[in-house]
């Protein structure tokens, strides 16, 4: 991120816009049955932040890191019925995303819609009660995402935005017999996220 900012500062383009942001959102995971079985809900809260630039051509490039962490339980599934086993399972998902897209409107507009897409790296960690180190999981998966939203300028350097994103991370789940994803034939670690962002900069 600093590299991008430094590059931007040296570029010296008059209309180059630089911004940073923090966000909070709700993600509904595509593997909804698997997440529901583990956590009691297919939806999780995700906190994130990042920054980026908007090129003179209204092309933006953003980098964003976020984090989902939740305690659930290991389960058994029989005929669609979920049996929690009383074994705590902590899952931490740390996505890192590079996005590019287009910002509509002019820099002076109060509301600026945008849309884009990019590549995602999802670091997945699973730590279970009673597990041996071999039984825990620490893997990184690559995926893709599309996003769109609108930014409302509160002041010259401050904005708020609402954003929706769809991410697919193939084969992040359901690759092992003891994965709930295997039980439900769910293999995608991505999902749909709605988030609110606070943007500093332009």
């Amino acid at each position: 991120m600093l590299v991008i900012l430094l590059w931007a500062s040296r570029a010296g383009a008059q209309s180059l816009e630089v911004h940073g942001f923090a966000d909070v959102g709700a993600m509904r995971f595509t593997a909804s049955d698997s997440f529901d079985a583990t956590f009691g809900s297919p939806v999780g809260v995700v906190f994130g932040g990042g920054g980026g630039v908007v090129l003179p051509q209204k092309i933006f490039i953003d980098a964003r890191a976020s984090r989902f962490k939740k305690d659930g339980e290991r389960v058994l599934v029989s005929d669609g019925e979920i049996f929690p086993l009383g074994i705590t399972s902590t899952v931490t998902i740390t996505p890192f995303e590079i996005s590019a897209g287009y910002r509509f409107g002019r820099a002076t507009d109060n509301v600026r819609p945008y849309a884009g897409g990019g590549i995602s790296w999802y670091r997945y960690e699973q730590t279970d009660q009673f597990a041996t180190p071999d039984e825990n999981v620490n893997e990184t998966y690559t995926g893709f995402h599309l996003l769109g939203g609108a930014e409302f300028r509160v002041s010259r350097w401050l904005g708020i935005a609402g954003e929706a994103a769809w991410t697919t991370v193939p084969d992040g789940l359901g690759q092992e017999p003891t994965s709930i994803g295997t039980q439900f034939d769910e293999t995608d670690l991505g999902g749909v996220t709605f988030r609110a962002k606070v943007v500093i900069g332009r």
Partner: protein
Amino acid sequence: MRHWTPVFFVLAAIVAWMVVPRLHAQQATASPAVLSTVERLRAFVAAPANGGYIAGETLVKFREGTAPADQSRALSALRRGTTGASRWIGNSVLLVSTPDDGDATAIAATLARQPEVEWAQPNYVRKRKLRPNDPGYSLQWNMNLINVPTAWDINKGSAPTVTVALIDSGVNTTTTTPTFRLWTGDRFEDVAIPFAINPDISAGRIKAGRDFVFWNGPVLDMDGHGTQVAGTLLQETNNNVGTAGIAYQAILLPLKVCFGYWDVQLLLGMANIPGFADPDDVGCPDDAIGQAIRFAADSGAQIINISLSGGAPAPFLRDALNYAVSRGAFVAMAVGNEFMDGNPTEYPAAYAAQIDGAVAVGAVNRSSKRAPYSNTGSYVELVAPGGDFSDGALDGLITQVGLDFALFDPAVVRPRFDRYRLISVEGTSAAAPHVAGVAAMLHAQGITNPAAIESALERTATDLGTTGRDAEYGFGLINARAAVRGMGLAR
């Protein structure tokens, strides 16, 4: 420039806060002081629920020759910093204390990425894998074969809320010395015959049960088969006595349905019929088995073990099994030992294939091969250790604390059923209680639906023989740890 220069500094500060670790001037050669005893004890006690490591403690080894300043630089990669409680272990390993950040796996990953660091790991708490102190445990290869000890790390041998009905030759439910009329060769005599409860099963874990064949008195085992099966199922574990049992916290409901040699001999005496019984005149009638199955279900037994079989279909037993499962009881049944005698279809095990919540159990030896005697067929659903003399002689058998008695002529030796010793056996009778025991553990974890227990056992079994279900091994060898551990989101 004029528009974004101030923004740059603001953003740089924000990004630096979010991305770049806050640097702490930290001497790698920290004070030898450790976390206070209470704090560390709490973290230690919480370790099993916290990924198995002490929260906030990470072991890190620096590369040889790394200067203290470089060590400090590496540690500064931790965003929330370390504390003076970090301490050296030897010359090159530092126990890094991060009380503000308990996630030692993340900390270890961060440190491991630093060029000065050779490796970093959370301060894991190694658990002594429960290896029972029962003196005969070293003979119980069967427990390791199906990962029972590591399952005990998760589930301490079921729970006292789980009742397992054992439909068999009974177990001694009381220590008593009743007098029976006994033919002793040339006359009848009133003979005092002592019985004692198995010293390796606490009397408090044995319900009164019911005798369906001998009398309406207390359940007594005059055959030894039931006592042997009960041992594998739920003998006391880690009590410094005898051997271990799988569901060592579960409650036993003994239901006697079999006539052993001495049952018949004593009944002959009570009927004033002189002479000795034929040792082959033993067995377990369907009426008793069927009644016992229903009695078990009506008594609230959640698990039923039936290590009995025969070659004739028995609708009475089929209906009883369906009844028991409908009442919430899971049933484990032996598939029979007649493979080398024509491999007939054996009942009631053969009914298991049509009943979700009842399983037919075959036997494997310690090499995880089907025991030569174990029946095969489409009804075999699981296999478990059953012992095999041809694979290791006595060491290849299933050993438990069993009844030490003899089929001697009562004219020479009067029967007694109050002595126990380690006894080794083989048979699918010995295999079935492994499944019933693990089922009892699952029930204690909240898997109360018999069909769900069967599903869990089959899904987590270790596939043997032909890939997938087959006639020799069914779905495979029961895996106790995999069953009680269940499934996680990704693994």
